[in-house]
């Protein structure tokens, strides 16, 4: 069995997928070097999940080329999936089984011998923070525990590449931090991670590189710090309150860029000192001064309107 460990774990070029005359993925290209974490960011409906399904050979693209390691997708997708782990967006653990039965049954789908799987189970449950819960029924596990068990399940075949579709959506902060910790350990061991998320802090923490998708197009790609430096002013001052929009518009010149959304004014600037001085003279307004984040880049590139 060939490993997926060529120089690039995943190469996507010109990927295109249409549903009902709409380009859900409209010709995107990106490369994921082996042993790195790559993030696919985008609002709902941007084409993230479709892109992942194409990379796994579950959806047949209408155009473009995908290579997962040395494998051509979708032609050799079954062989490639032998070396891949997947953490899906929705929980699909087997509710009729205990934690360890879930891992055993899943390992069999890879053709792994029962004895080998059983030997791996305790280590995987420990890794997932589920040590001693071999016999726990799925219904008795919390959302965070289920997600961790799904991560353990994705590792049953010791994969080279792991796809994670919104791995921390719906989890509390403790559970998110634990998952992040484990994902960092996996990249430290040389695994390649490809994750979708719409949590910018998650992407900023975990990803070596990321791509922002919107309406099926790749809007930008790069390391998180590079994207912030390239797309946005380094300082942000958010001003809140009923009077904030009017006040902000009258002081537009104090920042390089001003955006108003509802009762909040966002000043994007290089030097916040004049603005902060002006705010000191307006005690009725509340404000927050912070460094620019990936979320600001994301909002700038994909807009503020809701996506459903």
């Amino acid at each position, binding site marked *: 069995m060939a490993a997926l460990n060529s120089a690039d774990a995943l190469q996507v070029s010109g990927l295109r997928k249409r*549903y009902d005359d709409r380009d859900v993925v409209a010709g995107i290209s990106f490369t994921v070097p082996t042993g790195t974490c790559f993030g696919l960011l985008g609002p709902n409906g941007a084409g993230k999940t479709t892109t992942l399904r194409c990379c*796994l050979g*579950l*959806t*047949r693209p209408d155009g473009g080329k995908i290579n997962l390691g040395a494998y051509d997708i979708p032609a050799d997708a*079954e*062989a490639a*999936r*032998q070396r*891949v782990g*997947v953490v*899906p967006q*929705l929980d*699909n*653990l*087997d*509710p*009729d*089984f205990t934690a360890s*039965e879930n891992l055993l*049954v*899943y390992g*069999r*789908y*890879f*053709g792994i011998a029962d004895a080998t799987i059983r030997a791996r189970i305790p280590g995987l449950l420990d890794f997932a923070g589920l040590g001693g819960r071999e016999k726990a029924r799925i219904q008795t596990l919390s959302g965070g525990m289920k997600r961790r068990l799904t991560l353990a399940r994705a590792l049953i*075949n010791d994969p080279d590449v792991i796809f994670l579709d919104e791995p921390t959506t719906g989890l509390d902060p403790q559970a998110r931090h634990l998952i992040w910790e484990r994902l960092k350990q996996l990249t430290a061991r040389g695994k390649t991670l490809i994750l979708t998320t719409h949590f910018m802090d998650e992407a900023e923490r975990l990803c070596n590189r990321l791509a922002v998708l919107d309406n099926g197009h790749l809007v930008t790609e790069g390391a998180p710090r590079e994207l912030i430096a390239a797309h946005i002013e380094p300082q942000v001052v958010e001003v809140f309150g009923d009077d904030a929009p009017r006040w902000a518009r009258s002081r537009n010149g104090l920042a390089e860029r001003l955006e108003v959304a509802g009762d909040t004014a966002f000043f994007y600037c290089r030097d916040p000192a004049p603005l902060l001085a002006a705010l000191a003279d307006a005690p009725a307004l509340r404000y927050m001064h912070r460094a620019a984040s990936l979320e600001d880049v994301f909002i700038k590139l994909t807009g503020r309107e809701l996506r459903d």
Partner: protein
Amino acid sequence: MNSQQLFTLPRPGLRWLPIWRRNFLVWRKLAIPSVLGNLADPLIYMLGLGYGLGSLLPRVGGVSYVSFLAAGTVVASTMNAATFEALYSAFSRMHVQKTWDAILNTPLSLDDVLAGELVWAACKSLLSGLAILLVIAALGLSTSPLALWTIPVIFLTGLAFAALGLIVCALAPSYEFFMYYFTLFITPMLLVSGVFFPADQLPAVVHTIASWLPLAHAVQLARPLLLGEVPANALGHVAALLVIAAVAFSIATVLTRRRLLK
């Protein structure tokens, strides 16, 4: 997916075995209630109608009514077990629990999943049919060694109805949809295929149409075997059930690919 991939024939092999084993492991946890449930209902009908109604009837088809009803009960029970498994249970795994989605992320394909579900449903219906067969033997309603040939007939009947059920599963938007299949196909078939009374009692047109139905072929095989006779046109009935199973499974495969591999 283009039409070429949509209509590719399933590959032969044993790749479906881990899926069969998954279902078996679930079943093992619930085996006793499952077997009793599968057994109780048909037995109540067979014994209640067979001895109760049978005491009012002359001999039916040359034998006591309960002996006549025995073969019908075996195949009807097989049909029900295979149908329930391929409709409700498979639909739960496909649509509600997303078990199939989880499997598709492994090296297995959707064709493997469907083959596993087909053989599993047929095996489960075999168990149902066998349980009735044992009761029939214990009651002395069938004594001929030829009755052992009913076992492959049960399995074949299970395959045919599992394959038909998987078509309905592939089309179903929700559990409610299955009621149409029962009221429009399964129940009428139960009444015209010679399960409860000889099918030649029906008007000639109905009888002719009914003789093409899968359950009618199963009855035509199982009844003589249980009464110790070699079925007339046995090869024809076996071939009919095989063709129904193969064609229905191919249709189910295409429909499920269209549903899940968009």
